[in-house]
Structure formats: structure tokens, C-alpha cells
């Protein structure tokens, strides 16, 4: 994380105390930051380098047992690229949202933001990560087959990015008042 993020981090820590999942991670020596709850579900932010360890702990521990990866999604926020993971526990019937945020300033031009992949140890993430790569353009490091999954293989750009501009060609020039 860049220097500019540190003060903001400290402030937020004062505001929001770590929830049960954040405390659990802290007990195991994994730092996390609590974000405002999303729809009443605890939301934490992790650093990319702790992601794999944290996910393995959350999945394998007996009392937490967040062993169902509901989805991997991507968000193009104004300042950051977020990779969002939803975890669900069938034994405890509770939920956790994990975010890995890559500041846009740290991503060089013509490069994609890098986030470690879960696919090698959690196969459910495989297609979700491909989809996120396809539509939002987050490169998952360590993914076994990071190719486009929904769009044709030769698509240019990532359609759900804020700066995405689609070329107008013979297949989509009917609507002159398009919002594109």
C-alpha cells in the first residue's frame, strides 16, 4: 500500500473495531482492516500478500468454517480496483466479505492490477477469477488459466471499467443516442 493510505487507515481503525472475523484473523497474526458493514455483513480489507493465508485459515478452522466461496467479484472504484470475496459458512450460517484493494495510483499504465489467485487451492474461484479478469481487468497472479471467459477471446479492453469506450462498428451502430 502507498504512503498516502496510512493516515486514513489509522482513522478508520479508531472508528471501527475489529469484528469477530477480524479478531480471529488477528489472533493468527494476520492484520486486517474493518470496513463499514455491507448489508449487515462484516466486511474486512486485507493486504494482497496476506490473502492466501487468511483464506486458508478462514476455510479450515473448525469454529469459523467459512468454507463456501460464494463469489469473487471486481469493482472499479474511483480510487481503487477492488477484488471482493464473499464467504459463507453453512455450519454457522454467517457470512464475511473480504476485499483486496489495489490503489489505482500504484498501477502503471498499460498494466493490470495484480491480486494473488485463490484458484490453486480453492477451485471454486477459478471461473469467478476468469470472469473478473475478463470484465474488470484484474490479473490474478498464479491462476492456472487466466483467459477471457464471457467475451470472445479477442476482445479489446475490459467492459466494466469506468474508462471503457467501445468502438462503434457494423454490429452496433443502429442506436445513435446510445449512452456508450
Amino acid at each position: 500500500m502507498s504512503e498516502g493510505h496510512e493516515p486514513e487507515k489509522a482513522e478508520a481503525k479508531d472508528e471501527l473495531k475489529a469484528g469477530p472475523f477480524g479478531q480471529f484473523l488477528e489472533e493468527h497474526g494476520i492484520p486486517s482492516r474493518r470496513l463499514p458493514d455491507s448489508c449487515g455483513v462484516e466486511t474486512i480489507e486485507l493486504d494482497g500478500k496476506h490473502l492466501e493465508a487468511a483464506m486458508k485459515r478462514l476455510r479450515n478452522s473448525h469454529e469459523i468454517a467459512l468454507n463456501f466461496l460464494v463469489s469473487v467479484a471486481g469493482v472499479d472504484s474511483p480510487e481503487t480496483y477492488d477484488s471482493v470475496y464473499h464467504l459463507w459458512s453453512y455450519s454457522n450460517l454467517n457470512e464475511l466479505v473480504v476485499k483486496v484493494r489495489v490503489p489505482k495510483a500504484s498501477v502503471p499504465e498499460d498494466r493490470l492490477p495484480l491480486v494473488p489467485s485463490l484458484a490453486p487451492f480453492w477451485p471454486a474461484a477459478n471461473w469467478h477469477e476468469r470472469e473478473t479478469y475478463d470484465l474488470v481487468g484484474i490479473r490474478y497472479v498464479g491462476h492456472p488459466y487466466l483467459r477471457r471467459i464471457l467475451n470472445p477471446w479477442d476482445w479489446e479492453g475490459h467492459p466494466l471499467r469506468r474508462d471503457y469506450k467501445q468502438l462503434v462498428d457494423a454490429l452496433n451502430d443502429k442506436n445513435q443516442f446510445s449512452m456508450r
Partner: protein
Amino acid sequence: MSETDAKIPSGASESVPVSIPEELKDTVTLTTLDKAIELLSSAVDPVANWARSNSVWPLTFGTSCCAIEMMCVGMSAFDISRFGSEVFRATPRQADLIITAGTITRKMAPALVTLYEQLPEPKYVIAMGACTVTGGMFNDSYSVVQGVDRLIPVDVYLPGCPPRPEGILDALLKLQQKIRTESLAERRKRAYRQRAVRYVDYDTGRPVEDLVAEARMETAEALAEATGYALDHQVRKV
């Protein structure tokens, strides 16, 4: 020698319609055969068209919600078989009609073109639903083709989101009218120019035309470089 060689790639790409030279005009050619067929067809057409219009077999082609209505029209409540279209064929080679029931995305487009090209002539298309007429409510989407008429020629447009089964029957009746009134010559005139059945190279996912053009350009470049006529290519590289 080098000049003529370099010209081959660009010149060969245009296909010129064959014209019959003057000295061969009085021999029996395909055109005279065609004339005979046309004469015959004025007698045969009414019967053939009547038979054809009463056995329009659709292809099972449904890409989204409109397909539900298409299934409905095949079931007993609406029963499309009253009009001779009872058999939904699962292969284009046995069908006469595509009812494009559902949104066509850019990824689906090459598949639709391939299916259409595999239909035997005479072939007909009903563009069913707002999506296949204009793109419908996904008009603005990055992935949707704004109407199948951007890909294949359409005979009957059937708007609605989705159209009622009665609408499909109406479109079918309109198509039957069209089939009954057209002659062989008319059909020939609007015949679809076959591009290639393998429109897309399935290994690379790219249009064959593009691959061929690329190969041609590389050949031209190699030729030009070998013979020293490389000026404009060098400029492009810089």
C-alpha cells in the same frame, strides 16, 4: 519481376463476376439453361411454392427468453403444426427457417452465421423479439448485436418482448404468403452470397478472411524487403 510479384496479393483479393466473351455467346451455356429453367419455373412455381409454404420447418434455435414463447407455440395449446411447421429440426441441414428467438451476442454471432449458411436454399429468417430486431433493451450493451439483420438477411420482423405465440403464428403466415408469391428469379436475385461455411477459424477464433489478409500482407512485405522496395514498409515500422 519483383513488381508483378508484389502486386499479386493485392490484386487477387477481388472476385470479379464472370462475363461471357463475345465469341462464346451462341454456344449453349449455363445462362441458356437458366432461361429454360426460368420458363419452366413459371409453370412449376405455383405448385412448388404451395408445397414449400406449407412445410416450413424451423430450426431449434433459442438463445434467451423468446425461446420460451417459441416452445409454447410448438405445444398443443397453439400448435404450430396446424400450419405445417410441426417439426423443429435440431440440425440446420434439415430446416428451412430460423426463428431467431433471443438476444444475439457478439460471441454468438459467428455461430449464427455458420448455422444460417448451413441451411439449404431456399432459406428464411424470422427475426423474433425486440432483441433480434434492434437489440431491444440491451441496445446499449457492450456485448449485444443490434439486430440480426446486421448478420443475415431477414424476411419477417416480429417485434415484441416477447411476442405472443399468436404473433409467431402471424409471422409464419406472413412468411407463407411471401413464399407463395415469389418466383425462382426473385429468389435468385436476393440470394445470400455464401461467405464460407467456416467463417471463423475455430483454432484462433478469428475470421478466415482476416487470417488470409494477414498472410498476404506478410508475403508482400517479405517480397518487398527481399527486392529492396521496402521504403513505405520501413516508414510504417518506425
